[in-house]
């Protein structure tokens, strides 16, 4: 750390000099983000699974990249900040990789997740095709299993 946050901010000083683009640049990035938002909402309406996955999650990644690069200025930040954030993401991948097999599968060589199987079966049987906040206002949630059961 070469300096502290206690010094009064001077225009153009290191402490406040990260934003170096004109305002119009940020407005353009915002415009691109809004176009991507529209695509992510419209894409799934086509009803094609691959298109939905790409437009929903692929575009979320692109939007995140634009925000990190242009609004948070991570590209011109000290390198160790990016490494710090990537380390945290790597820990998440380790967590998901370690727990995933137990959560995603409901049966293994020497174990059987009876509660999860029951929850899936009961939920699928109950259905629930009412649309968004649709016809069952006031009724209990369809296919509601107790929180304990759904594990």
């Amino acid at each position: 750390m070469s300096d502290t946050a206690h010094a009064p901010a001077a225009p153009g000083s290191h402490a406040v000099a990260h934003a170096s683009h004109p305002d119009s640049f940020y407005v353009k990035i915002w415009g691109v983000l809004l176009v991507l938002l529209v695509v992510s909402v419209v894409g799934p309406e086509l009803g094609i699974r691959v298109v939905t996955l790409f437009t929903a999650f692929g575009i979320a990644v692109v939007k995140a990249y634009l925000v990190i690069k242009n609004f948070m200025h991570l590209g011109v930040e000290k390198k160790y900040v990016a490494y710090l954030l990537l380390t945290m993401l790597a820990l998440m991948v380790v967590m998901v990789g370690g727990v995933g097999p137990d959560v995603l599968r409901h049966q293994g060589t020497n174990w059987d997740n009876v509660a999860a199987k029951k929850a899936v079966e009961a939920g699928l049987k109950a259905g629930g095709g009412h649309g968004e906040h649709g016809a069952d206002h006031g009724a209990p949630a369809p296919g509601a299993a107790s929180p304990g059961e759904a594990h």
Partner: protein
Amino acid sequence: MPTGRLAVWWLIASEIVIFGGVLGAYLMHRLGHPEWANQSMHTSTWKGALNTFILLTSSLSAVLAHNAASRGDGKRAAKLLWATIGGGAAFLVVKSFEWTAEIKAGYTISSNTFWSFYYTAAGIHGLHVIAGMIVMMFVAADAAKGKELQRVENAGLYWHFVDLVWIFLFPLLYIAK
């Protein structure tokens, strides 16, 4: 690097673990429980999209505030921070209407595990929105007097992270039906 900015990056790193844990757990359960599709179809895509628009716009005003601060224009930075706070308030208003409709329809945090995740993830995120708004009120008050302008960037970094989390919550909770 200024100590304050380093501290905010450190905070964001720890937040990645918090939200990463919640989102990772949600994703695994969503894939392992096909019946959740019957529940997720009841979330309102349009209210979620409206809130995405609001947060993206508030991120724009946050980065413009940072730009103004970097030019030494504390008054404009303060105004833009207040606009960002307004965006946070609008987000919470939409959320309150959304949750009211869902709870009235019988979808509560204890209905089943999908709704438990839904309210927990969106609730933790909402608390971060409120925290960001409170921080920005203090930063804006100082910035209006031309004081501590370096804090405008720090508050903005945190706000962009809150926006980032929502960018991933939106497809997970509202699009993947």
